[in-house]
């Protein structure tokens, strides 16, 4: 008998459980947008190259266009709809607003999810390709504009708002005492 090509599953998104039946071909991105009506996560390239669909999976940033929904069962998904505390914007959201970290806004949910994770990764001591001294003893490198640009390179902005995106990430990181 050929294997079933769909599954009943429960997705945990922004702290809520959603039960649905998905064709296995459904990506997490399409499940969020088309099935759960969580349209904050954007579809850009749909091939893992632009970062517009970035969400957090178990707290780590990931591109939801290359994540199968069925393989996301059992993981905690956070989308842009879940980063604020009620009416209180996440500090990264506030920094993007204050510093105009966007123009058209299409890449912004992905940029913000990516930046939230970036700040956590940096705080955990993760180096990047821009880090000169990789030795763990050296500690986390200063979060310079060069470090931010490298760590955000998976998020493209066709409007070219990069200058203010870097400033917004730096300001949000500063609030956590991380920026250079």
């Amino acid at each position, binding site marked *: 008998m050929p294997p079933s090509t769909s599954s009943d599953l429960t997705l945990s998104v922004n702290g809520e459980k959603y039960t649905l039946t998905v064709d296995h071909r459904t990506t997490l991105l399409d499940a969020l947008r088309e099935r759960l009506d969580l349209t904050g996560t954007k579809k850009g390239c749909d091939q*893992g190259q632009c970062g517009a669909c970035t969400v957090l999976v178990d707290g780590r940033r990931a591109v939801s266009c290359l994540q199968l929904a069925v393989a996301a069962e059992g993981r905690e998904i956070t989308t842009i709809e879940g980063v604020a505390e009620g009416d209180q914007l996440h500090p990264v959201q506030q920094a993007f607003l204050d510093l105009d970290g966007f123009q058209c806004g299409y890449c912004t949910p992905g940029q913000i999810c990516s930046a939230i994770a970036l700040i956590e990764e940096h705080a955990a001591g993760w180096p990047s390709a821009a880090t000169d001294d990789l030795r763990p003893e050296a500690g986390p490198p200063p979060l310079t504009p060069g470090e931010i640009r490298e760590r955000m390179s998976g998020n493209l902005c066709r409007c070219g708002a990069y200058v203010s995106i870097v400033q917004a990430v730096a300001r949000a990181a500063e609030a956590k005492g991380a920026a250079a």
Partner: protein
Amino acid sequence: MREFGYQRAYDVSGAVALLDGDGEARFLGGGTNLVDLMKTGVERPARLVDVRDLPLDHIEPTGDGGLRIGATVTNSDLAAHPEVRRRYPALAQAVLAGASGQLRNMATVGGNLLQRTRCGYFADVTSACNKRNPGSGCPAITGEHHNHAILGASDHCVATHPSDMGVALAAFDAVVSYETADGPGELPLADFYLPVGETPHLETALPPGALITGVTLPPTPVAANSRYRKVRERASYAFAIGSIAAALDVEDGAVRDVRLAFGAVASRPWRARAAERALLGAPADAENFAAAADAELAHAKPLPHNGYKVTLMRNLVVAVLSELAEEATR
């Protein structure tokens, strides 16, 4: 995309049993390459066996002073690991030089080794490609090949292996462990990828149905003084047009130990053994570094539009070894 069945495995023997040697089934790791290829129709599995929940997500020291890296360790965790950064810095740098933060969080070590070439003709199902459709031809040889192979290619395929991680693993003599229904096995990375020859569609020496369970790095003291350098067409988030993993130990001005591997120049991470042989015992200076690079690149067969890679790799060898020599004697 073709419809497919999905099963999740929770232990190694269960994963191998679920796959059951089925040629139409694939193991699913992070999916960053496989899911992409399924969308374009290059891969058309009837069934996926998800291995992300296998207990293979650890990095542990081996008894002899090496490191054992589990197959489902993510690129991010590999690059952030203190012992990798301390003892094999070129490996951490190589991983960090690849993809983006998002993709490194998803991608796994096992999947990284098995990722497919980014040759545009391979990715385009309307095009001929001996790797995707054996016997159909290789349009790259007379077409767009500015980022194709200069070493070890054949008249049947000139595609390159895209991994950065694999280049550092090749330099450090990594050994790939796998599990089959008949028991476990091992393959040195040097024997893991098959020569291109007339069968570019056969990429690895893994037995059918085998699951990669991990990669072991032998103790390699010289690796503590190592570096990965990647040249690409933009500053970040792009595949290499040439890269190098190098490690160097210098004593009294002479090369005591050296490791060299090249990326983006061949169908596999290219261990530069001819260059290493030329360097052992020789004075650690730019002249010898260049001569060693020439020894390796003497067998290069560039195509009309990728001859720049010969010069690029020569310059990379000289630059990176010169830096390492200075640091080794500081």
